[in-house]
């Protein structure tokens, strides 16, 4: 999967969690949580969706690596390289 495809995947998952999420002003290097009003419960949904769609097991200690859109892409790129 390309970096752009991974980015789209993450945004699509977020859209699925909150259909009113507004990506217009989203800054890719800033925490998703603050910008989109997501809480830790919503965050778990991103992890669960990645598991469901791509059989990815993300250990709890790696959750901080999903903080911003950029860090998501960096973290997921090697894991999804064959996807």
């Amino acid at each position: 999967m390309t970096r752009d495809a991974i980015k789209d995947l993450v945004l699509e998952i977020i859209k699925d969690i909150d259909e009113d999420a507004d990506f217009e002003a989203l800054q890719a290097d800033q925490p998703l949580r603050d910008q989109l009003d997501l809480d830790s419960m919503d965050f778990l949904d991103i992890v669960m969706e990645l598991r469901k769609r791509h059989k990815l097991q993300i250990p709890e200690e790696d959750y901080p690596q999903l903080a911003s859109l950029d860090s998501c892409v960096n973290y997921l790129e090697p894991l999804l390289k064959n996807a």
Partner: protein
Amino acid sequence: MHVPLLIIGGGLSGLAAAIRFARFNPDVLILEKHSRIGGLNSYYYRNNSLFETGLHAITNFAPPQEKAAPLNRLLRQLKLKRQDFTFHEQIKSDIFFSNQEILSFSNDFALLHQEIETKFPRRAPGFSRLLQIIKDYDPFQAAAFRSARTLLLTTLDEPLLVDMLLCPLMYYGSSLENDMDLGQFVIMFRAIFLEGMFRPEGSIKDFLDTLLKQYQELGGKIRLQATVARIIHQDRKISAVELTNGEVITCDNLLSTIGHEETLAALAVPPLPKQRPRLGFVESIFRLPAGCRQNLTQEKTIIFFNSSEKFRYQRPDHLVDFSSGVICFPGNFQDLKAQPFLELRATHLADYGSWKALAADRAAYLAAKSETAGQSKLALEKIIGNFSQDIVYEDTFTPLTIERFTAKKEGAIYGCPDKIKNGDIGYDNLFLAGTDQGFLGIVGSMLSGVSMINQHILSRT
């Protein structure tokens, strides 16, 4: 039969937990002892008419755009669309302390704030400090018990105001006598005063049916009239549950919503050391013809009242304490469709032991129920005016009724006074959710189910 997740109890916490898990793995089974779902918030039929149990109002109202509000977080977690529900907000409610003071509040917090400034002008600065404490407090952080009453007395320095603020919060969610844990107080203060009260369109049955449909569409299964005889375990590891019909269902994880002591009994391990008293309640439902509406308030949704000099939220030493309670008008929410009848519900504190002592003598028990309805009417009429001459139907639930239909020990709707906030009762793959985990109310209990699944099961499996 084997399931990755087995849930005991089809009340609101069990249903919410089940939906949450089924979103990612449909292999989940709920076992419900009763022939109907809902637990404490359910319904029954009499005279071809549906009667709700439990529900007065749902707390934690929030408009759709407040994404971080518990109600909206909950709906997102369950993948339920806010627009699929119609919610009716309360009109106005009162805290009515006879011969002392009355405070009105609504879903607009400014009303309560203004009431306090007008009626307790000298306490206004203290109240502002209290609001700041509530704003800054994180009730979800693990903390030792801290007395909310002590903090309120120091901050407000006015026992009457302290009792008046505690009264609704205790009646709608305290398992503890005469005090609350500060964390629980903050949760309830936000839920009732800062967020507010509402009810769904239709009846609790429609609400439950929506949840059940969501669950079943995700592929989840439920069995009604399925009673757990025992939980089979080897030390800390649960392997299966055996039903009273002998069937054994194995599971990877077990979530119990039936209460802490009730779960220990199913595990056949020693019970907890003697606990503080559980609080029992009686509730009467009175129905009147719709035409009587003019004679009674149409502006008040709920009245929390106290008529004694000192408000007591404690187990009475006799059947019922009529000196305080809650009066609910389920028809007085904003923009409700006109109903063919007018309903009134009255709740008071009751003593399980006194009712239990009457149980063997059916005639005496029924007489006490009827006497309870009578005394309750008298207490209510002093506050809302006469209505008993118009009653066409009435029914009364005692702590024994509640115990029988919900299996809550001693009919204590708010469960054990000591909560297990992390749901961990010392087993590897068994967790507690619902009443004894400690988030109370309909939104609270559902969030309890969701957060226990998130914390212990989804993030680990």
